[in-house]
């Protein structure tokens, strides 16, 4: 896909007046500068100044200031000038009706919340159009009282809200392959998003049904045409799993599971079953196709890993990132996202020289448990080639592995759970490309 010109402008039009003393603020090789620059401790006002020549305006009164615009609307839409910020649904496959994925345009967004219309999708048989008045969530199997809950009833239950990421376990899977794919942050890493999810703790509904003492697993099944199901250990189900009805404050979008989905914090996205209709308690997992044939990884010794649920600690640089073009030399802000299925992000380091030297990035203070953390670091690009890498550490001390470490652990047959450090190569002419170190 192509990068909007405005992206290039945002990246390229920052030519600051750096005092000679700012070389003292260089903290790692190839132009990485101290995060203190972002914290107001140095260089007051000298940071990301946009040169006046970059303005597209001619200083005459613009037409939108001379006539009234349209009035209020029922449901607001993005400006038409950002209409190209889109997921990438790809082409429909008639042999796989409704199946496929679309990825979040990570390189075109800032902050940490993914707008609902841009949250990534993965469907196994398309998006069902569910009438909430004709939908129920039922709980059966090893329970004292099999129960059904209709949508109106679910709305009366006490709910909690959590801002947490969701990542498909196939995200970045292309990076397992030998040849480095030439893609964007979206096309390579866009199967991760973050939202405020509001719903009922699953434990509340399970308590009402009365879980039998011998139950160890919960099977969750959706009401889509694939009736997709996954088995989840009961101890996770009663820990922090939500029966979610709202996303970023509004009812779930159809492609995110309207009217009701499971949300399983920190675990591979596929277990957060959308269009939830069944919860079944059992002693053993149900051995669904999507936990045997798929979502399993074969190791070099040909044994295969099953129920590899948590998403590992990971970070990606979203700017500069693949297929962007740096226009002018000068100060840039390296930005990206970090997350961990285990907890919260405690540190992100950045290298501009392929991992030889590292500098600690600033992390937005509000980064919480299993949510996306936004990190930033100033970087002065002076036209030399650079290899930009980020490396995250979570609050349990898990450190994002190198690609070689991950390959040594999982082997070349693996596809899921790629969480290794990724490298963007910046050429001397400013072209940014995915590469392996």
């Amino acid at each position, binding site marked *: 896909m192509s990068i909007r010109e405005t992206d290039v402008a945002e990246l390229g039009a920052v030519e600051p007046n750096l005092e000679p003393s700012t070389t003292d603020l260089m903290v790692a090789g190839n132009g990485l500068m101290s995060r203190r620059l972002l914290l107001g401790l140095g260089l007051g006002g000298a940071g990301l100044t946009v040169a006046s020549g970059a303005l597209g305006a001619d200083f005459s009164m613009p037409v939108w200031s001379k006539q009234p615009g349209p009035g209020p609307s029922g449901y607001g839409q993005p400006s038409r000038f950002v209409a190209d910020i889109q997921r990438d649904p790809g082409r429909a496959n008639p042999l796989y009706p409704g199946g496929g994925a679309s990825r979040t345009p990570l390189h075109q967004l800032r902050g940490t919340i993914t707008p609902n219309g841009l949250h990534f999708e993965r469907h196994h048989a398309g998006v069902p159009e569910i009438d909430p008045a004709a939908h*129920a969530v039922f709980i059966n199997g090893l329970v004292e009282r099999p129960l059904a809950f209709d949508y109106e009833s679910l709305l*009366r239950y*006490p709910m909690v809200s959590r801002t947490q990421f969701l990542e498909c376990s196939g995200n970045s899977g292309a990076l397992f392959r030998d040849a480095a794919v030439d893609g964007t942050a979206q096309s390579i890493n866009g199967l991760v998003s973050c939202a405020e999810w509001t719903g009922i703790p699953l434990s509340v509904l399970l308590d*009402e049904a009365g879980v039998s003492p011998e139950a160890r697993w919960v099977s969750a099944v959706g009401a889509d045409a694939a009736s997709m199901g996954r088995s989840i250990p009961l101890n996770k189900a009663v820990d922090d799993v939500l029966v979610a009805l709202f996303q970023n404050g509004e009812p779930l979008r159809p492609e995110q599971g309207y009217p009701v989905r499971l949300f399983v914090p920190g675990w591979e996205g596929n277990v957060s079953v959308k269009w939830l*209709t069944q919860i079944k308690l059992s002693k053993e*997992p*149900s051995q*669904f196709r999507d936990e045997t044939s798929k979502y399993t990884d074969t190791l070099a010794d040909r044994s295969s890993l099953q129920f590899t649920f948590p998403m590992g600690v990971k970070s990606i640089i979203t700017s500069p990132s693949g297929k962007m073009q740096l226009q002018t030399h000068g100060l840039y802000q390296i930005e990206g996202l970090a997350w961990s299925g285990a907890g919260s992000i405690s540190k992100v380091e950045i290298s501009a020289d392929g991992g030889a030297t590292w500098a600690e990035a600033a992390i937005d203070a509000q980064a919480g448990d299993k949510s996306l953390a936004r990190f930033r670091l100033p970087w002065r690009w002076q036209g030399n080639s650079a290899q930009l890498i980020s490396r995250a550490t979570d609050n349990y001390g898990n450190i994002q592995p190198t690609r070689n470490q991950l390959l040594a652990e999982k082997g070349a047959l693996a596809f899921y759970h790629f969480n290794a450090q990724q490298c963007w190569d910046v050429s001397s002419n400013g072209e940014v490309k995915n590469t392996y170190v």
Partner: protein
Amino acid sequence: MSNNIFKPALAWTLSFALSAPLAVAQDTLGSPQLGKPVTQMDLSDLDLIASKESVLPAGSGTAFQGREIYAAKCASCHGAEGSGGAANQPLVGGNMRSQDAPTRTVGSYWPHASTLFDYVRRAMPANAPKSLSNTEVYQVIAYVLYMNGLIDQYKVINAETLLTLKMPNAGGFIDMSASD
């Protein structure tokens, strides 16, 4: 499914009456207890889980009986011999011990035969899921097992024989759930 599990719509004004204690422990959230009792009979259309623990439905089939259904409803995507076809989704062949990257199919990879019944009944054929009768599911999965050389074409596949069929890669998986 019977309709009696849906009670009349409740007034929206009641909807959020209990939403105040957000940050408190779950056992004090105060469940309104609105679940309606259902029986397994009520759920007979909806509960499609077929596993060691969940009873598979009545019915049976042989590969000989399933050959025609496979040709009519499966072969266009999976290939006449199950070798991949237009969708490049092979059901047959592969060897987990091969020198090259193994082709992972029902025969070479799937650890449980029950998954075949479960998946075909809930999700196949992709353009008309749940259009096969239970008998047709037994017949067509018998044919897939037969193409993989796991049974002969007259072997009767039913709830009992399916669960006792040992798949070649049954011991090939490591359950990582305990390490989570």
